C-alpha cells in the first residue's frame, strides 16, 4: 500500500515507478528524502533560527564558546530594547510608506500604460513600447549615479527629491518588467470582449475598470508582491537618496546603527526588519512561487 502511493503520486519523473515499488528503491527514496530534509533544515532554517535565538541570549551567553544551541536564559526583552532604542517603529513606517506608495503608483501607472499599449494601440504605441522594453536591457544598478543625479535635480521642474518618498516612488513606477507582464496578460483578453463592451457604450476607461481589471486580478497580485518585495529589500538606492536618518527605510537604518549597538540587540532588529516580509511570503507563498516560475522565464 505504501509502495503504491509512493510510485503513483504525480507524474513520473527521473525515477521509474517500477523501481519505487521495490524494497531497494523505497529504501533509497527514504534515505534521499531524509538527507535532503536535514540538509535543507540546516542550510536554510538553522541560520534564521540562530538569528532569532541569538537575539534572545544575554551578551555573555552570546559570546560564550562553545555556543548554546538553545538559550539557557531567554531574554525576549532584547526585542523591546531594539524596538525602542533603534526607533524601529519610525524606520518600519518609512519602509511601509515607501513600499506602499511605490506599489500604488506602479500598479496604477503600469496597468494604465499596459492597457493603452495592448488594447487601445495608439499611433506611435509600438515606438513607446520599444523604448520601454529597451530599458529591460539596462542593468539597473549600473546606472545608479545618473539616476541619483536626476533625483537630485529633476529636469524642467528642478525639484530635489532627496529625502522624499517620491525618490523611491517615481523610479519604481518605471518598471518595464511588470509593465510587460501586464501587457502580455491584456494581449490575451479577446478583442471581441472589448468590442462588445464598446458597442454597449462603455468608453476605454469604463472597459478597463469593469471588464479588464477584474480579469487581471491574479497577474495584479503577482506584480503587487514583486513591487513591494523589491522596494522593501532595496539597499543601495535608499542609502543614496535618504541622507536624513529619520527618513531612511529599515534596511538602511539597521545597517547604520548596527555598529553602535550590542550584538543581541542588533540581531533582534534584523529579525524585526525581516519578519513582515517573511510573513507576507508565508501568506502568499503559493502565488509567489507560481508567479516566480511564470514571470521570470517568460518575462
Amino acid at each position, binding site marked *: 500500500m505504501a509502495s503504491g502511493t509512493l510510485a503513483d503520486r504525480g507524474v513520473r519523473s527521473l525515477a521509474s515507478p517500477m523501481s519505487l515499488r521495490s524494497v531497494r528503491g523505497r529504501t533509497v*527514496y527514504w534515505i*534521499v528524502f531524509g538527507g535532503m530534509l536535514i540538509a535543507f533544515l540546516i542550510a536554510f532554517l538553522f541560520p534564521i533560527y540562530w538569528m532569532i535565538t541569538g537575539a534572545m541570549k544575554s551578551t555573555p551567553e552570546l559570546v560564550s564558546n562553545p555556543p548554546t544551541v538553545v538559550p539557557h536564559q531567554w531574554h525576549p526583552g532584547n526585542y523591546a530594547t531594539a524596538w525602542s532604542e533603534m526607533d524601529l517603529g519610525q524606520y518600519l513606517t518609512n519602509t511601509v510608506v515607501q513600499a506602499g506608495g511605490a506599489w500604488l503608483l506602479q500598479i496604477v501607472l503600469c496597468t494604465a500604460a499596459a492597457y493603452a499599449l495592448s488594447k487601445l494601440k495608439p499611433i506611435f504605441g509600438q515606438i513607446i513600447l520599444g523604448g520601454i522594453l529597451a530599458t529591460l536591457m539596462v542593468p539597473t544598478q549600473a546606472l545608479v549615479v545618473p539616476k541619483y543625479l536626476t533625483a537630485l535635480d529633476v529636469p524642467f521642474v528642478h525639484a530635489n527629491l532627496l529625502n522624499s518618498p517620491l525618490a523611491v516612488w517615481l523610479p519604481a513606477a518605471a518598471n518595464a518588467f511588470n509593465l510587460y507582464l501586464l501587457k502580455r496578460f491584456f494581449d490575451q483578453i479577446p478583442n471581441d470582449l472589448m468590442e462588445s463592451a464598446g458597442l454597449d457604450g462603455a468608453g*476605454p476607461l469604463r472597459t478597463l475598470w469593469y471588464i479588464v481589471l477584474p480579469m487581471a486580478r491574479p497577474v495584479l497580485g503577482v506584480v503587487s508582491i514583486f513591487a513591494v518585495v523589491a522596494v522593501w529589500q532595496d539597499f543601495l538606492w535608499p542609502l543614496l537618496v535618504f541622507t536624513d536618518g529619520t527618513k531612511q527605510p529599515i534596511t538602511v537604518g*539597521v545597517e547604520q546603527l548596527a555598529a553602535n549597538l550590542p550584538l543581541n540587540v542588533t540581531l533582534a532588529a534584523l529579525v524585526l526588519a525581516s519578519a513582515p516580509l517573511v510573513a507576507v511570503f508565508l501568506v502568499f507563498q503559493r502565488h509567489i512561487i507560481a508567479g516566480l*516560475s511564470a514571470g521570470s522565464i517568460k518575462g
Partner: protein
Amino acid sequence: MVVATEAGLRDATVVASGGANRGVRRRRRRAGTNLAAYGLLAGGVLCFALFSWYPTVRAFLLAFQHTNFVGSSRWVGWANFHRLFADPEFVAAWRNSFEFTGVALVLGFGVPFVMAVVLNELRHLKTVFRLLVYLPVMIPPAVTAILWKWFYDPGNGIFNQALGFLHLPTSAWTNSTHTAIVSLVLVATWANLGGTTLIYLAALQNIPSELYEAAELDGANILQRVRHVTIPQTRYVMLLLLLLQIIATMQEFTTPFIMTGGGPQDATVTVLYLIYKYAFVYFDYGGACALSIMLFIFLGVFAALYLRLTRNSD
C-alpha cells in the same frame, strides 16, 4: 510589430467594408481612443523618461564631461577614462567582479540544478521544501549581510566555532584576501539559491513523462536519463538563468559594502562598489559615469542576448 499589422489590417477591412460614412465615424473614434491612450500612458512614460531614458543618455554625456555642479560642466574627452585606467583599484574591481561572478556560477548554477532534480523526485513535504529553500530570498540582502558578518566572525562566529568543535582548521573567511571573495559568494548563493531552484523545478515539471519512459526502455540508467533527457529539456531555462545570474552578480554591491567595506586590501571592491566610491566618496561623477557605461555596455551584451532568446520563444 506583428500586433501593429494586425490592427492595421482590421482597421483597413472595417473601413473598406463599411463605406465612407463608417470610415469617418471610425476615424473619429480612433482619435478619441488615441487621446484616451495617451492620457493613460502619460504618467508611466514620464517616469520612464525621467528615471530610465534620461539617466541612460546622461551617463554617456557625463562620462565625457567634468562636472562638480557648482560651475558649468565642460567636455574633457577621454580624460575620465584615462584617470580610471591609471587607478589600480579599477583593475582590482573588474578582476574581483569577474572572480565573484565565476565562483557564483560554479556554486549558484550547479547546486540549484542538482537540488531541483532531487526535489523533483521527492513525493512528500513538497511545499515544506519549497518554503525552506525560498525563505532566505525573502530576507532583505542588507539583513543577510549583517547576519553573515556575525557568522564569519573569526572568534565569535558559528562557522569557526563549528569547525573548532569538529577539530577542523578554522578560516579567516572575509578577513583574508584569499578567502574573502569565496566567503561573499557563499552569502550571495545562500540568499539567491531559492529563486533559481524553484524556476528549475518548474521547468523540470514540464518535461513529458514519455521521454523518461522511452529512455528507460532504451536501458538508460538514472545518470544517463539526466544527461540525455533532463539536461537537454531544460537547456533553454539554464541558458536564461545563466545570463540573468551574470547580469545580477556583476552588479554586486550590498554584500561587500556591508561585510568587508571592499577589503582586505581591495580584495572585494566590485565594479559597482568602485562606481559608488567615485561618485559618493571622491565626488568624481565623470569618472563614476565612465565606469558605469563600461559596465553598462558589458552587461548590455548579456541583456540583449537574454531578450533575444525570450522574444524568440513567444
